[in-house]
C-alpha cells in the first residue's frame, strides 16, 4: 500500500528520470509568467508560518515570501498556487520542478545548500531548537531530560541536533519519530512522549493547537541555530535573485518606514532610499527582468517584513513571539538587507 508521501516521491523521481536534459535549466521566471502563477511549496499546516485561515486562504510568514515574489513578478500577490509538503517531500518537490519556491520553515545547512542542487536565498526567521514539556512533570530546564521519550518530526535538522545534544551531555533518550508535526502533537497529547522538540517558533505554534495549552510549557533552553529561509533550485540565477531581493525589499521597506498603508503616499517621498526602493528613481527591477514598481507591488500588497512578522507570528497573532533576534539590525536584531541602489 502506498501513501501520499511515496506517490509524491515516486512522481518526482519519475520526473527526474524521464524529463529531458533540456528542461533541466528551465527559465523559472518565463515559466511562472506563462502559467500566471507561482508554485509555492509550504508546510502541511503550521500556524503563523503557513496554514490556511478560516476562509481557506493561506496565511503566514512563509506564505508572505511567496506572495511577495508573486507581487514582484506578476504584479498580483494572490497569483500563488500553494502546495503543501511534509518535511520528507520538500526537497524532492523543489528539485523536480513541482514547486518554484520552497518556503517552508527550512533550516539553512551546508549539506542542503551544497549537495541537493538547491540554493537558500536568505533568512526570513532566525530560530533555534527548543523543548516543550507538560507542566506537571515539574521540569525547568533541558538538563533534566535524561531518559525522556521525545516526539519529533521525521527528516528535520531537529532530529540531528537532538542526538548531538543528548550525546554531548551524556544523556539518553527515546526518539519517537512521526511524519508530520500534527502527528507529533498527537503523540505528545496521548502521553507517548514526555517532550516535544522542534524549532521554538514551531513549538509556540504547536502549543496553541493543544487541547489545553496551559498544560504544556516551553523550556528556556535553545540548543541550536536554525536560520529558516526560502529555497530555490540551483542554476537559475535570475530566479534566485528575484526571490532573494523580494525578501530584501520587505526588510528594506521596514527600515525605511514603507508599509502597506502608506506605500502610495511614499511614492512621492523625498527620501532617496525610498525613491529607489519604490522605483521612482531608476529601475532596479530591470536586472531581474522585472518592472520598476516590483518593490512597490510587494510593499503595497504584502507589506513590509515587520508588518508580516507582527500579523503572522508577533504580538498581533496568537503566537505572540517577540521580535528578539528577528528585529532589524538597527534595533538590536539580525535582520539586515543590502541597500537597493
Amino acid at each position: 500500500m502506498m501513501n501520499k508521501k511515496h506517490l509524491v516521491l515516486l512522481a518526482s523521481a519519475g520526473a527526474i528520470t524521464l524529463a529531458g536534459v533540456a528542461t533541466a535549466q528551465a527559465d523559472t521566471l518565463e515559466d511562472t509568467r506563462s502559467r500566471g502563477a507561482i508554485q509555492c511549496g509550504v508546510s502541511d499546516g503550521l500556524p503563523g508560518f503557513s496554514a490556511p485561515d478560516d476562509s481557506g486562504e493561506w496565511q503566514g510568514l512563509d506564505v508572505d515570501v511567496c506572495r511577495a515574489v508573486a507581487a514582484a513578478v506578476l504584479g498580483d500577490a494572490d497569483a500563488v498556487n500553494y502546495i503543501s509538503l511534509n518535511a520528507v517531500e520538500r526537497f524532492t518537490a523543489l528539485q523536480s520542478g513541482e514547486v518554484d519556491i520552497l518556503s517552508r520553515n527550512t533550516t539553512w545547512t551546508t549539506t542542503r545548500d551544497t549537495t541537493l542542487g538547491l540554493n537558500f536565498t536568505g533568512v526570513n526567521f532566525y530560530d533555534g531548537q527548543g523543548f516543550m514539556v507538560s507542566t506537571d512533570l515539574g521540569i525547568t530546564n533541558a538538563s533534566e531530560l535524561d531518559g525522556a521519550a521525545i516526539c519529533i518530526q521525521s527528516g528535520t535538522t531537529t532530529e540531528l541536533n537532538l542526538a548531538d545534544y543528548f550525546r554531548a551531555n551524556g544523556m539518553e533518550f527515546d526518539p519517537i519519530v512521526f511524519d508530520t508535526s500534527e502527528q507529533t502533537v498527537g503523540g505528545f497529547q496521548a502521553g507517548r512522549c514526555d517532550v516535544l522538540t522542534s524549532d521554538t517558533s514551531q513549538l509556540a505554534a504547536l502549543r496553541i493547537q493543544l487541547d489545553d495549552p496551559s498544560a504544556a510549557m516551553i523550556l528556556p533552553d535553545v540548543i541550536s541555530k536554525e536560520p529558516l529561509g526560502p529555497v530555490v533550485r540551483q542554476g537559475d540565477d535570475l530566479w534566485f535573485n528575484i526571490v532573494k531581493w523580494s525578501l530584501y525589499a520587505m526588510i528594506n521597506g521596514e527600515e525605511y518606514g514603507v508599509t502597506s498603508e502608506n506605500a502610495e503616499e511614499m511614492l512621492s517621498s523625498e527620501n532617496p532610499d525610498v525613491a529607489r526602493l519604490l522605483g521612482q528613481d531608476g529601475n532596479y527591477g530591470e536586472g531581474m527582468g522585472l518592472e520598476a514598481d516590483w518593490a512597490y507591488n510587494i510593499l503595497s500588497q504584502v507589506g513590509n517584513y515587520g508588518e508580516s512578522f507582527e500579523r503572522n507570528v508577533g504580538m498581533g497573532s496568537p503566537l505572540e513571539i517577540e521580535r528578539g533576534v528577528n528585529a532589524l539590525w538597527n534595533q538590536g536584531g539580525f535582520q539586515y538587507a543590502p541597500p537597493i541602489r
Partner: protein
Amino acid sequence: MSVRPNARPVGQKPPFWRDRAKRALIFQCLLIAAVIAFLFYVVGNVQDNLSSRGITTGFGFLSNTAGFGIVQSLIDYSSQSTYGRTFFVGLLNTLLVGGLGVIAATIVGFIVGISRLSPNWLIAKLAAAYIETFRNIPLLLQIFFWYFAVLRTLPSARDSLAFGEAFFLNVRGLYLPQPLFESGFGLIPVTFVIAIIASVALVIWAKRRQEATGKRLPAYWISFALIFGLPLLVMFATGVPITWEMPELRGFNFRGGITVIPEFLALWFALSIYTASFIAEIVRSGIQAISHGQTEAAQALSLPRNLVLRLVVIPQALRVIIPPLTSQYLNLIKNSSLATAIGYPDLVSVFAGTTLNQTGQAIEVIAMTMAVYLTISLLVSMFMNWFNARVALVER
C-alpha cells in the same frame, strides 16, 4: 511445423523471414535490445539531469555518520553509526513485524476460518462478524485505532499496570525482564538443536515403521517432550545459568529489561488482525472446496474426527489455500510500510524517511528500498511456490 499442401520441394530451405521459429527469435532479440536501450537512456538521462542540477549522486553517503537516534534496533545502533547501518536497522525492524505478523495472522486466520464452519451457531456467527468487521475497514484506520485509541487508555509510566514485579504495561510500552546469559548457557541452545534433529528423525522413522508394520507411535508427543524437556533438563543440570534483569522505574521511565514499544504492538496487532480476516476466508473456502464425500468416505473407514481433518481434509484443502495465502503474506509485508504513520521505525520510516531527507539522495534511497521489498516478496513467493509444489496433487 505443419506440412502445408504447397510445401517447397525437399532440400530447398525457406528464407529466414518465412520461418516462424526464426522470426519469433528475431522479434524477441529486438524487444530485448529495445528494453536495454531504454534502460540505458533512463540511467544516462538521470545522471545527466542530476549532474546538471548539481545534485550529489552515488552510494558514498552510506558510509557517512547518520547522527540521528532510532528508538528500536535489533542490532547495535547509536547516533554515531552510519547511514548504511540505518538501512539494516530499518530492514530488521520491517522483517520483525512482517515475520511475527505472518505467524500471528496465520494462526488467528486458521482458527477463525475453521470456527466459521463450526456447527456451533454462536462460534460460527462470531467468526463471521470478526471477518466482516476487520476486512472491511481500511488498514490505516485500524493502525490508528490500535495506536491512538488503545494508547490513550493506558496509564502513564508512574501508574503502570504491574503484573508481579516483573511485567509492566503503560503508555510507553510493555516492559519485560531481560534474560542475561551466564557462562555455560551455550549448552542449552545446542541441546535444543539436537532435540529438533532427533525429533525430525523420530517422526520419519515412526512413519516408516507405521507403513511397514501398521504399529503407531505417538511421535508428535514424544518430539514435543524432547524439544522442550531436554533443554529444560540441561538448564537445571547446569544450575540455571540465567539471571533476569528486571525493569525498574527510574526518572521518567522504566530502565533495564526489554521494552516492547507501543508502535510495534499497534502495528503488529493491526496487520495480524486485518490479514487474518482474509486468511480466514481463504481457509474456509479451501475446506469447503473439498467434497463432503471425502469426509464421509474417511468416516466410513472409521477414522476419528481429528484424523479425518488432519489426514484427509486439510492436505487437500491446502492445495486450494496456499496460492491465495501467498498473496496475503506478501500484502502483509508490504503493508508494514504503513508503520511510518505511527512512528514505528521500519525501513520506510527510517531509511526512506529520515535517511532520505538527511542525505537528499532520493533516487538511490528509494531504489534500495524498492529493491528490498521486491527481494523479500520474491523470496516469500519462491518459498510458498516450493511448498505449494510439495502439497500439490501428484497425478499418477
